[in-house]
């Protein structure tokens, strides 16, 4: 693996807090809907955290607040020692759709964040790095292909590269593989885990799938709806790295069942 790509995103050792959310609340003033209430959360460097909850529990709102896309009504969000007051360069984001731009080739899409940030010349220089990233996700040879010719899974791989090219400290993942079929989804999840471990990235995943959350995460934040608040933070003490075989173990099943029971409780209220 090339040293340039695998370098550490920040000097801090694994385990130091990267993201700190204290008493974060969000109220949509117009209709007085409380979307989030008193969220306290710490993400440590190199950790993988998932947030799970039924629709309308404020998962997306939480992610948008963390990304600096919308401000919280109350509370503070600190990322790497500095408060988040808008979008930041040390945040990488990925969505359910690959959102590749069809008029750009795969590699042009990947260097787009560099182009936006530092201009066309810098984007050209970043091409070499984009090629390495494409190698990592198994897309070499597809550099100059247009997104229309990529399958859903391939497009998401390319969008992983685009997220990684700016070497973000945290990866915010909004149901990134939920549009894929189950086989590709499992494969992509393992890929994601490998990349996160290699890059020592701190990841935060929003998902609907309990299995996906359990197989990937150190910690799972279970949200209760109306108003969205933390029901429990479940530690997943399966050994790392995870493999797909673990999904058949009794321990995995027990954790899944436990989280499902938490979610069911949330629904009753």
């Amino acid at each position, binding site marked *: 693996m090339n040293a340039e790509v695998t370098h550490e995103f920040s000097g801090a050792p694994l385990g130091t807090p990267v993201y700190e959310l204290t008493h974060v609340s969000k109220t949509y003033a117009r209709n007085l809907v409380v979307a989030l209430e008193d969220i306290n959360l710490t993400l440590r460097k190199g950790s993988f955290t998932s947030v799970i909850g039924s629709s309308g529990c404020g998962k997306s709102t939480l992610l948008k607040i963390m990304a600096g896309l919308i401000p919280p009504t109350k509370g503070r969000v600190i990322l790497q020692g500095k408060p988040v007051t808008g*979008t930041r360069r040390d945040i990488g*984001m990925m969505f359910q*759709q690959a*959102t590749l*731009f069809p008029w750009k080739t795969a590699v042009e899409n990947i260097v787009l964040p560099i182009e*936006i*940030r530092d201009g066309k010349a810098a984007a050209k220089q970043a091409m070499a790095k984009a090629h390495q990233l494409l190698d990592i996700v198994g897309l070499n040879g597809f550099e100059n292909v247009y997104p*229309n010719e990529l399958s859903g899974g391939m497009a998401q791989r390319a969008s992983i590269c685009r997220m990684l090219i700016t070497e973000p400290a945290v990866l915010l993942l909004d149901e990134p593989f939920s549009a894929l079929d189950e086989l590709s989804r499992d494969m992509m999840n393992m890929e994601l885990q490998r990349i996160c471990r290699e890059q020592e990235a701190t990841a935060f995943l929003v998902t609907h799938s309990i299995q996906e959350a359990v197989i990937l995460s150190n910690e799972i934040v279970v949200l209760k709806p109306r108003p969205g608040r933390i029901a429990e933070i479940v530690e997943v003490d399966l050994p790392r790295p995870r493999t797909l075989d673990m999904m058949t173990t009794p321990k995995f099943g027990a954790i899944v069942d436990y989280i499902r029971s938490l979610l069911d409780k949330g629904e009753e209220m």
Partner: protein
Amino acid sequence: MSQVQDYSPSAKDAGTAEDTVWEQKVHFIDSVPRWIAMTFVFVVFVGTWQIVTSLGLVSPIILPTPMETLRDMIFVGQNLLTGGYMLGALWITFKEVVYGFALAIAIGFSLGVLVGETAFGEKAVMPYLVAIDTMPKVAFAPLFVAWLGFGIESKVALAAFIATFPIVVGTAAGLHAADENARMLFKTMGASRMQTLIKMKLPTGLPQIFTGLKIGAVGVMAGAITGEFLGGGKGFGELIRVAASQLNTPRVFSLILYLSLVGLAVFASVVWTQRKLVFWHKEQVGRDDF
């Protein structure tokens, strides 16, 4: 082969094997090449025309025979090719159309960006544009003549006036075409408003913008000719008007046919540009682009 037959219940003779083959029915029209189908419609059309005129159902002053029309088309074609007075008239109309379209693109695109990109434009300018768009624009022709005279300026103005609105609407719609994820992505990348507009919103909206341009390209022709009908001048529209007032219907028909070539050229140039620029858009090669 034998395995296949084992599965079929009555696999005794060779004839039953064919029963398992699907017979795919091809609809008749799908087996006919396009040019033959088009020629067929043309022949039916001209044939009906010939029958109607030769039976004397319609007065020859109102509807000439196909032959008369063809003869006149050859005459007009010769005049055009030898650089006769008709070529000059066609050149004038062509200029009106091109200038009108260029003006409509410039104004329409600018207004479209204003209306589609800024909250002020959407709130304060759009209602006026909608109000003006609902007015019969041809009714403004006498005003343009009064303001700009009988030269090509008044025709250019009317042509541009008619073609501007679809371009405004297309541009504004195009700027709204980008989805929520693309917007969020650009926000997270720290893109400025200008970058978001140029690198994301405008390219995303190109299909809609070109739809507006195509509607505009049709309107600009109508505008130029209407302008000539109502404001005189020396263009092709004037030739048509004079021919019609002399009840020279074959001439009117052939002039219209040649005129349509100009409209077709403008439209084709828009489609060509679209193919070059919006190569990535799937519906781009759809039925609306001949």
